[in-house]
């Protein structure tokens, strides 16, 4: 009886055929009347929404019987797999560079690579990707060059971001990837606004917005989802539920049924998927995109995964979780899972694997050597892009700094003698 109050929850299981639905119930005061009237106090249990989890690909590389496969052919599969492989190699190499003291900071996405790569693979190039900070895989899939990655990581003069943000804060206008911001969850209402703008223009385009289950505690999460529902913005909210916000486990972050249950509360189409299953990520995002464009409405995807790596190179997970827990999740490696599938499809073999790994390792190492010796940004970039044109005050402040640097050149080696 109580379950029937959640008429919306019942539509969850119908997501795969969402496009066939002509009319969808929207939350209104009339809808409340759909529930039974009772004469004894009847509380709804906080966990009464049952949320299925989509799994298509098993760890051994077989697909589940009767599973709906995503649109994927050998070309796309190979591109996805190569991107995943590059991602893994890149992360490994950059952590080593950080340990060697060449790089100040880095963040891997170890174990969660399928969420960003699979999401990006389901989209069109004109779709905006708003990342949190662990979605370098989306940039890699879109073709952000190795050189661009390195220039950002080494905050040198060729960085698209002009050496202003810490490593991993990538972004590219050309690739429709919004520059990462350290401020968690701010991208969520922004994605709603961005998608609303796309809708107003009548574009065949959506915005995908990545965030973690920790960031979903921020006020901006609730603001962004509610506004997307009310304003009917074609945005795909993609939650990477990786179990940890730095050291805080999900159990200490919220008590509801994950993040997916909140989508129901906001009247948003919601799906939970196995985030380590590349085919499930691809399938769910492909359907979400089609729905968002056709219906001009938001979708929430909660991808269940696990942050196998540390939060960042400044973090040490041994202080808050066990090796056994990590080992359990290592058995769910999303890249190995896809490799197993590729091998079964005869789309990939071990010789190709070995050659590719070798090639990527060399390329990444060579790119580090190039980027780390490029100059820091010119001193004049201190005041550019604060406004469209630097104000007279800013110009005066810069002139003062330049005069000072000239007086004490040895104290300012990045800029002294370079202007």
């Amino acid at each position, binding site marked *: 009886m109580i379950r029937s109050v959640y008429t919306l929850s019942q539509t969850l299981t119908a997501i795969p055929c969402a496009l066939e639905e002509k009319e969808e119930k929207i939350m209104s005061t009339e809808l409340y009347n759909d529930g039974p009237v009772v004469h004894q106090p009847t509380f709804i249990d906080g966990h009464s929404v049952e949320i299925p989890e989509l799994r298509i690909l098993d760890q051994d590389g077989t697909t589940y019987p009767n599973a709906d496969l995503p649109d994927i052919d050998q070309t796309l599969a190979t591109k996805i797999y190569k991107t995943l492989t590059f991602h893994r190699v890149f992360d490994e190499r950059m952590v080593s560079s950080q340990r060697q003291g060449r790089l100040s900071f880095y963040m891997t996405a170890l174990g969660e690579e399928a969420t960003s790569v699979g999401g990006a693979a389901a989209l069109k190039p004109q779709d*905006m990707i708003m990342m949190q900070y662990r979605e370098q895989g989306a940039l890699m899939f879109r073709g952000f060059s190795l050189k661009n990655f390195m220039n950002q990581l080494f905050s040198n003069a060729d*960085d*698209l*971001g*002009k050496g*202003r*943000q810490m490593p991993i*804060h990538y*972004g*590219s*206008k050309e690739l429709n990837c*919004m*520059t990462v*911001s350290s*401020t968690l969850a*701010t991208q*969520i*209402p*922004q*994605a*709603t*606004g*961005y*998608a*609303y*703008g*796309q809708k*107003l*223009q009548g574009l065949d385009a959506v*915005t995908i917005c990545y965030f973690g289950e920790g960031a979903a505690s921020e*006020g*901006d999460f*609730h*603001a*962004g989802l*509610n*506004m997307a529902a*009310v*304003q009917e913005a074609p945005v795909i909210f993609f939650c990477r539920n990786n179990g940890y916000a730095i050291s805080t486990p999900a159990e200490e972050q919220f008590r509801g049924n994950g993040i997916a249950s909140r989508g129901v509360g906001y009247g948003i189409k919601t799906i939970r998927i196995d985030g380590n299953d590349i085919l499930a990520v691809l399938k769910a995002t492909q359907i979400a995109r089609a729905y968002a464009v056709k219906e001009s409405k938001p979708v929430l995807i909660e991808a269940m995964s696990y942050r196998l790596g540390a939060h960042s190179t400044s973090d040490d997970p041994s202080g808050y979780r066990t090796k056994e827990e990590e080992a359990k999740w290592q058995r769910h490696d999303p890249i190995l899972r896809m490799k197993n599938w590729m091998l079964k499809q005869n789309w990939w073999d071990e010789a190709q694997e070995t050659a590719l790994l070798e090639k990527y390792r060399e390329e990444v190492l060579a790119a580090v050597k190039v980027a780390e010796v490029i100059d820091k940004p010119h001193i004049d970039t201190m005041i*550019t*892009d*604060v*406004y*469209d044109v630097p*104000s*007279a*005050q*800013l110009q005066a402040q810069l002139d003062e700094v330049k005069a000072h640097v000239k007086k004490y050149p040895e104290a300012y080696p990045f800029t002294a003698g370079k202007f």
Partner: protein
Amino acid sequence: MAKINLLHAINSALDIAMADNERTVCFGEDVGHFGGVFRATSGLQEKYGKARCFNSPLVEQGIIGFANGLAAQGSVAIAEIQFADYIFPAFDQIVNEAAKFRYRTGNEFNVGKLTIRTPYGGGIAGGLYHSQSPEAYFAHTPGLKVVIPRNPYQAKGLLLASIRDDNPVVFFEPKRLYRASVGEVPEEDYQLPLGKAEVVETGTDITLLAWGAQMEIIEKAAKMASNEGISCEVIDLRTILPWDIETISHSVMKTGRLLISQEAPLTAGFASEIAATIQSECFLHLESPIARVCGLDTPYPLALEKEYVSDHLKVYEAIKKTVNF
């Protein structure tokens, strides 16, 4: 030329901005059919449709987050925060996001097409949560422009300039003057420059500087002072950030004295920033300490509002004290 009040001038600017560019969108709490609690957006939804002028849910951080995304996408986003007192849930989206968007992306993206309108200031028996003047918080944030008009003519021209300026602008509207201030305003499109103060009256003995609703206060005090033979130069700062140091220091080098009047509390108000800069720019020309006539360092009161606020009498007394230093 028609005489209209400040609200109508705002409404006229929004109407022009929306007619001018179909990608202009106005939204905020009660902004849609109702036209805003002060009616600044009256008639816009009827004219331009619900997609371009609409009510937002009651969530300031969402309004500005949404506006940032919309502006980054290339739309012209005009967001209303119902009272400046309620802007603080959106502080992160304004200070960390809007203000730093262009800088942190290396100009890959920007939210230059964002304008945030919000009524500020006291004088309407609004107590501590309907009376604040929070301009100094935003003036401390590189990347923002902060604009405050003093009358209907200024409001329309400055708002149109703010909407079209390629930087995020926080536009504070003096709510006490919404209906009280009436003046001639051209029906057509015009803009007034941002970052430029305006010398409203010329004088020789002291420079009086203010913005927004404080302008009529210092003008009234200047008249009282002139009866005593004190010649006041009256300046409207108009843009708080980036502010027009040149016009102010030029005036102070001439008069040798400066008085700044603001509604906000004294400590770390924008008057303090002006005083620091002008003493540095005009040190050898100053004949008396720079005077700041401000609210007390308390929350904005209700019953004792008159005692609290910088009014013409307090300014008049400060003029005499400064001139007779």
